[in-house]
């Protein structure tokens, strides 16, 4: 019985549809289990300070559990420890903390794997041309938040490019990378970044994007340049508009993740913990509970597992 139990959900922002859906999922699960849910978020992706203040408010309110998608995975460990010291169950969603055992449990996508899948797919789709591809890397922000780095580096790994330092993007010296631009993860940034890349080299034929809104923006720039049919765009997220873009041929392939699942699992874990102190368990063989990632495309490539757009549409969020 979860009566009197309260939980907190702390996301990176509350404007990215990904987190909006996560919140909706958590709210639904909480309502079902009779848990009071409070949500908090930073103002921009990377807003660590607001997340600390949110943890403090949760401690002050005597919450039983906290679900957090950390903006600064290493720095958040300290306030998380305070919360755990205060007897609160802390679960990392979407993004593992650094170290991963700083949280009681982690329900996450493997962002590096998500990147790797689209990288392999792109390399496979190009075949031999992959050796002289011209790649545009449309990243998140110059502060290089971890998701952005993991996906970018995963993509390059999958594509077969030497990573240099895997904890940062932009230090690779492979000539196939034409540009690294930042997009803020939205259409606006995606379009401007793509235009800039095209101005630098109009022959670009592979575009990595941090997420689907950025991909949609990049596509508009390609349309304006008349090159939309000759360029492969890959992305990450698997939101419903993104999957629809795969169906329309805007995006070639996208790695789908499952925020609703993360959220509902998290709430259930808090309910169980409040009831009898049970702690959630990890996926066998991993140090976190993997909520899974799937490549969505209608042009499967040998050696890369993928699901069809139809399946992706059934599973999509938002």
């Amino acid at each position, binding site marked *: 019985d979860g009566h009197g139990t309260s939980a907190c959900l702390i996301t990176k922002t509350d404007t990215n549809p990904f987190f909006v859906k996560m919140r909706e999922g958590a709210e639904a699960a909480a309502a079902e289990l009779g848990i009071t849910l409070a949500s908090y978020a930073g103002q921009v992706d990377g807003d660590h300070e607001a997340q600390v203040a949110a943890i403090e408010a949760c401690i002050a309110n005597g919450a039983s559990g906290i679900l957090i998608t950390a903006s600064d995975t290493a720095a958040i460990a300290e306030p998380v420890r305070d919360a755990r010291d205060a007897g609160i169950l802390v679960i990392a969603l979407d993004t593992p903390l650094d170290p991963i055992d700083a949280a009681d449990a982690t329900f996450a996508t493997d962002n590096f794997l998500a990147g790797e899948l689209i990288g392999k797919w792109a390399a496979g789709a190009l075949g031999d041309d992959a050796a002289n591809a011209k790649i545009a890397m449309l990243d998140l922000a110059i502060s290089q938040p971890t998701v952005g780095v993991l996906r970018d580096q995963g993509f390059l790994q999958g594509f077969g490019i030497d990573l240099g330092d895997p904890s940062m993007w932009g230090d690779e010296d492979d000539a196939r990378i034409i540009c690294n631009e930042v997009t803020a993860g939205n259409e606006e940034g995606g379009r401007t970044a793509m235009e800039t890349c095209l101005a630098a080299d109009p022959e670009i034929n592979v575009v990595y994007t941090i997420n689907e809104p950025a991909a*949609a923006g990049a596509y508009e720039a390609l349309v*304006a340049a008349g090159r939309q049919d000759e360029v492969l765009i890959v992305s990450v997220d698997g939101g419903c508009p993104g999957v629809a873009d795969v169906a329309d041929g805007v995006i070639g392939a996208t790695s789908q993740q499952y925020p609703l699942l993360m959220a509902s699992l998290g709430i259930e874990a808090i309910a169980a913990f409040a009831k009898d102190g049970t702690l959630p368990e990890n996926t066998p063989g991993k140090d976190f509970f993997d909520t899974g990632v799937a490549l969505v495309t209608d042009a499967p490539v040998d050696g890369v597992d993928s699901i069809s757009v139809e399946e992706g549409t059934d599973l999509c969020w938002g």
Partner: protein
Amino acid sequence: MSEKSDNYEKGLEGASQTVVAFDVGDKSFLMRSQSALHKTPSLVPLVVLVCAILIFTGWLGPRFLPQMTLVFQQIQVVGILALAQTLVILTAGIDLSVGAIAVFCSVIMGQFTFRYGLPPAIAVGCGLAAGAAIGALSGWLVTRIKIPPFIATLGVWQIVLAANYIYSKNETIRARTIREEAPILQWLGLKPNEQFVNWIERLQGVTYERIRPNDTDQFLLDLIWQTKITYGVLALIGLTFLLAYMLRSTAWGRHVYAVGDDPEAAELAGVNVKRTLMSVYMLAGLISAIAGWSLIGRFASVSPSASTGLEGNIESITAVVIGGISLFGGRGSIWGAFFGALIVGVFMLGLGMARVNPQWTFMLIGTLIILAVGIDQWIRKVAA
């Protein structure tokens, strides 16, 4: 002494009655350009702009110049916001809400069309009206409740942005949906030159599949096709002309400057300060809404999380200040804001084309903005 004192005004009889005029003599070219800059200080950012273009042309070679039309497109939104910002800054205010208004109004235009099924033209009208209404709210806070503009518009910014997220449920309306069902929303993204070429060709009965420039044998049409100017860019230029006219040649414009210069003096001299301020904030809201429409044109989709909502204010203020408009009000020309936006646009694209890494680009933009204004100050000093 007393015998001289009372009638000293006698000395006035026969006082010179001519108006003074000094003959400054022949003017060299340098002096003439000096005095041109002195009379029209908004030329200074133009000079800086030309320098910036020359530098990048020197650095990147001939491939830079043809991209200028792209620069125009890239600033079509922030440029319009800078116009709105200029109006408010001329009155010694500041409007932190312009970007949020633009995004929210674009959401209104989109949602009114798709959620409520209104005809798109009417939805656009509603969006524009909403912009003016939000501007009126800021104006009311500033003139009636006497909240300083920074705080009033900071509050309105947060309110509008939150309303935008809540109302839109953070849902994006996809480009394709809009293109198929409500193309008017994207009108400011269309290119009249493409339309013109298509129209000519339809008349001639030919249809080239013009995907890339220069692949037909019709040189002139190719050239027109290549010069990709959108209606949004034309709207920016048109609005700048219109506002320049209003500010320079109408009583309202004089009042805007007077209010910014010294509101007490303006009030004592017979200007209705409150009404002038109110009109400025409303107009700024309306223009921001136009920027929102332009946002749909430029990015094809309607996205509540567009970065303009967060960064539109600082970007527009930057353009205004680079354009030589004083943050203390009353001084500067709207053309300054236009050129200011272009200067930043040239830097951004130029550095991107030079393949500077984004972190370094960010740093260089900072340096270049300082440099641009430093040169501006220097020209002003030399011209003074």
